[in-house]
């Protein structure tokens, strides 16, 4: 694909590096997190057999490049774990390993790199890691540091970068002086490591420096990754400035994914006007909005409580002959249900089926939400039955939606539903918790309300502060109502 030179993907993955197969903006968040978790577990645990295998076999999609020339027996090799950052003891540990003859066959580059990586996770300075690398090549001549060795050093330097990036540059220079010209993969590793350790400022600095050289110019994945990080913790104007700078200074243009990230971000911040402006800009640049972008815009309308607008967006999509997907339909139905047009939402179930999509738990929950808002909580309860009969199992959100709706209409059914939720150990959401408490208190079931309060804390649905605040204010409200003769 993009990087023909990338052979040991697994190694990179444990440093927060994603293989290209995973690098689409849509699923960036999750894999990154799961991979990072993976990385943590592999560095924290002692590499007993199981954890070692675990580290080598990250999620399915990363095993695209199967480990070459490595037999499974190696996975059970006695790897070195470093618990102290002391360089001389690390050296000794490695030396003692080389003296055992039966291990001589496994001291290949891959193994040595994993030793080095293990040390970098505890070592205090890159200098120490470089010493270890030199020592390893001395006592084990079959090991010749390769590109990954230097990438390991680089990623260590990026976890604790100096303000002026001098240690990162040192790692890059070391790499180049040993005959490995930094390339786009290097850039990607550096940027991702910087971002994942919260050094966005330095990442911006570094990407500007690296963009000056053609070979290390970031590709769209690296670029979009950084933009995605930036929109999360910077103001919109400074991100726009960054994008402008990259375009003018280095000819790096934002692509459709970049715009989708930006639009998603402004939509989440309820700034729909900016989203519309960006939409115009991207059209001017010659991009054609795709299904993802329209889904994002629909979501935007839903967050600003303009659920009715989704229908307009949907019609536009059909006009432009963009094929909607399940997310489109779910967002559409969610928006319609939220804006009191649940009947129209139900109509779309048929249309979905025509396009080959079947309602899932999200679709049903949105519809139930709409029915409850419409005051038809019993209809929502019927829908639960229909949903289960079709083999679609409800989740916590479904139950919470229903509980919320039933409290307002049929408290007895709500209590019943609560029993089911409790039996399954489901958590209560703060909204449905509050509504439930109020409904119980209103009908004079204060003791039951206390029981729900206990359950909310016990099941860790809410913090005890949040649970108590709600209980207290509900009871206060009840007392007031009693004084005025409004409640039992």
């Amino acid at each position, binding site marked *: 694909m993009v990087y023909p030179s990338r052979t040991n993907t697994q190694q990179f993955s444990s440093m927060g590096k994603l293989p290209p197969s995973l690098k689409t903006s849509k699923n960036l968040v999750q894999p990154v997190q799961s991979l990072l978790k993976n990385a943590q577990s592999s560095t924290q645990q002692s590499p007993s057999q199981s954890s070692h295998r675990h580290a080598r076999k990250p999620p399915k999609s990363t095993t695209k490049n199967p480990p070459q020339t490595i037999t499974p027996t190696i996975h059970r090799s006695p790897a070195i774990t470093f618990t102290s950052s002391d360089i001389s003891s690390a050296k000794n540990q490695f030396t003692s390993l080389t003296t055992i003859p039966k291990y001589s066959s496994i001291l290949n580059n891959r193994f040595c790199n994993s030793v080095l990586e293990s040390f970098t996770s505890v070592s205090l300075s890159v200098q120490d890691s470089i010493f270890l690398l030199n020592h390893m090549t001395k006592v084990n001549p079959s090991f010749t540091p390769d590109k990954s060795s230097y990438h390991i050093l680089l990623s260590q330097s990026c976890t604790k970068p100096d303000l002026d990036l001098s240690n990162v540059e040192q790692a890059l220079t070391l790499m180049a002086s040993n005959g490995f010209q930094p390339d786009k993969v290097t850039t990607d590793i550096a940027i991702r490591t910087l971002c994942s350790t919260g050094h966005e400022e330095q990442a911006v600095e570094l990407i500007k420096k690296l963009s000056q050289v053609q070979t290390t110019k970031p590709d769209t994945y690296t670029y979009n990754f950084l933009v995605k990080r930036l929109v999360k913790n910077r103001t919109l104007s400074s991100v726009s400035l960054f994008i402008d700078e990259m375009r003018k200074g280095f000819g790096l243009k934002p692509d459709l994914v970049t715009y989708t990230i930006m639009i998603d971000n402004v939509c989440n911040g309820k700034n729909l006007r900016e989203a519309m402006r960006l939409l115009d800009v991207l059209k001017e640049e010659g991009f054609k909005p795709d299904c993802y972008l329209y889904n994002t815009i629909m979501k935007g309308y839903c967050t600003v409580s303009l659920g009715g607008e989704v229908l307009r967006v949907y019609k536009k999509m059909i006009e432009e002959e963009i094929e909607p997907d399940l997310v489109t339909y779910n967002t559409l139905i969610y928006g319609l249900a939220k804006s009191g047009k649940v009947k129209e939402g139900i109509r779309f179930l048929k249309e979905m089926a025509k396009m080959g999509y079947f309602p899932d738990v999200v679709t049903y929950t949105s519809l139930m939400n709409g029915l409850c808002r419409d005051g038809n909580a019993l209809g929502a309860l019927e829908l639960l039955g229909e949903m289960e009969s079709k083999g679609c199992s409800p989740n916590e959100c479904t139950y919470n939606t229903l509980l919320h709706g039933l409290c307002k209409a049929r408290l007895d059914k709500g209590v019943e539903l609560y029993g089911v939720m409790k039996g399954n150990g489901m958590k209560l959401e703060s909204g449905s918790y509050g509504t439930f408490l109020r409904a119980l208190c209103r009908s*004079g079931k204060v*003791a*039951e309300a206390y029981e729900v309060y206990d359950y909310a804390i016990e099941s860790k649905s*809410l913090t*005890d*502060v*949040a649970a*108590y*605040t709600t209980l207290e204010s509900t009871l206060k409200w009840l007392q007031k109502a009693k004084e005025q003769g409004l409640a039992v």
Partner: protein
Amino acid sequence: MLPQRMKKVVTDNPKKLATLIDLVNLPSTFREFVGRSQSSRLGCFQHVWSYIKENKLQDPNNKNIVHCDAKLKSILLGKTQVELAELPMLIKLHFPKVQK
């Protein structure tokens, strides 16, 4: 992320939250009941509520009513029976308002 309600409480009124979870020196009656000299209002409430549950002080016919035993009476204004609904208010009485 903080739950919505919690977030609202914090942003709306940080002081209100502080009176709920800050440790304060308890008045002497409460000190005996809780067995500690310092506690938060939330901690006290939890303590009283679990005391009621443990000693089964709720009226078996109407669970909303609590029959106070001697120990509980000492902290709840000497009432022989209280309603569960009043409980937070009664406990709050032991916590003087903080001057602004």
